[in-house]
């Protein structure tokens, strides 16, 4: 039985391939899901294309992966943008290989507001540097926290004592002015 999503996925793959050519490194269609593996330099234009041309109006999540010691991976890290289109009911993932020595990635906050906290979390947990983000600082861990705890080389029990209580006043003030309304 063919999956009803398959035809929609085919159309997206064909369109992205014709628009971006070699920037589309690979297509992963395991478990009837669609993941486009995209070059780091082209990620912002691919995301913008999916939003504008394919009506992917929701950025559900941004996930980071540490591929350390994984034999099949080309780079140390991967970023994964999970998109969903309400009008066409299609789910697309955009996967970006990110090398350890160059972790600059263009921000997606100008495309979706939900990218703001997603990118902050990916930054604090893995150390991705989202270029152009309005306030790239720690979201979940304490502001005195050092390092990136979801990296494979971070010690699992590496808790850090923080000396002060954290105050949200500064965050709230920045949220008034620092984020597009």
């Amino acid at each position, binding site marked *: 039985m063919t999956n009803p999503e398959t035809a929609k996925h085919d159309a997206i793959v064909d369109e992205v391939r014709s628009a971006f050519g070699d920037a589309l490194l690979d297509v992963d269609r395991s478990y009837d899901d669609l993941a486009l593996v995209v070059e780091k330099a082209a990620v912002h234009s691919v995301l913008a294309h999916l939003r504008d041309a394919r009506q992917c109006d929701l950025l559900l999540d941004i996930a980071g992966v540490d591929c350390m010691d994984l034999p099949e991976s080309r780079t140390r890290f991967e970023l994964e943008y999970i998109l969903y289109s309400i009008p066409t009911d299609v789910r697309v993932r955009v996967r970006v290989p990110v090398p350890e020595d160059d972790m600059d990635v263009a921000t997606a906050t100008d495309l979706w507001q939900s990218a703001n906290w997603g990118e902050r979390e990916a930054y604090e947990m893995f150390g991705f540097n989202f270029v152009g983000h309005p306030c790239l600082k720690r979201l979940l861990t304490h502001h005195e926290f050092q390092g990136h*705890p979801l990296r494979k080389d971070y010690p699992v029990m590496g808790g850090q004592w923080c000396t*002060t209580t954290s105050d949200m006043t500064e965050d709230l003030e920045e949220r008034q002015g620092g984020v597009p309304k």
Partner: protein
Amino acid sequence: MKGATFTKNETSLITTRLDEVIKWGRKNSLWPLPFGTACCAIEFMGVVSSYFDISRFGAELVRFSPRQSDMIIVAGTINYKLAPVLKRIYDQICEPKYVISMGACACSGGFYDNYATVQGIDQIIPVDVFIPGCPPRPEAILDAIMKMQKRIDREPAPRRGVERRHEITDKFTDSH
């Protein structure tokens, strides 16, 4: 306090030591501050409510201000970001103050063996009674309060303004 009889139209006299009266008052009117951060706090609500009824032990007056409470019940997971907050709340409670660590997370970190969770609140504040369980049964909480009352009865009555213990190293700079 045993043996006192009250007869109508007759003057009654009880002789005791001041310490005993103070301890009797303290142990039977423990005002708890629920520091609830997880499911243990839901279980604590059950203990306060009518079925288990914590007021049978004089500890039903739940206060949400550290200035008005005697006993802090730490119910739930405490992570490193919250640790300075818990220390500050503890410091704000007036002496004498008592601490109950409720549930596996507060006692030992529970199953959160990771970088985010404090592996036992006794690293931050001195704990009088630990309650095991995930979450503990309401009876276990009542048992802890009875144990706390026995402990208050056994120890010499602490005086106002006198710090009881100093062995916990101060990890935080801005607690007061």
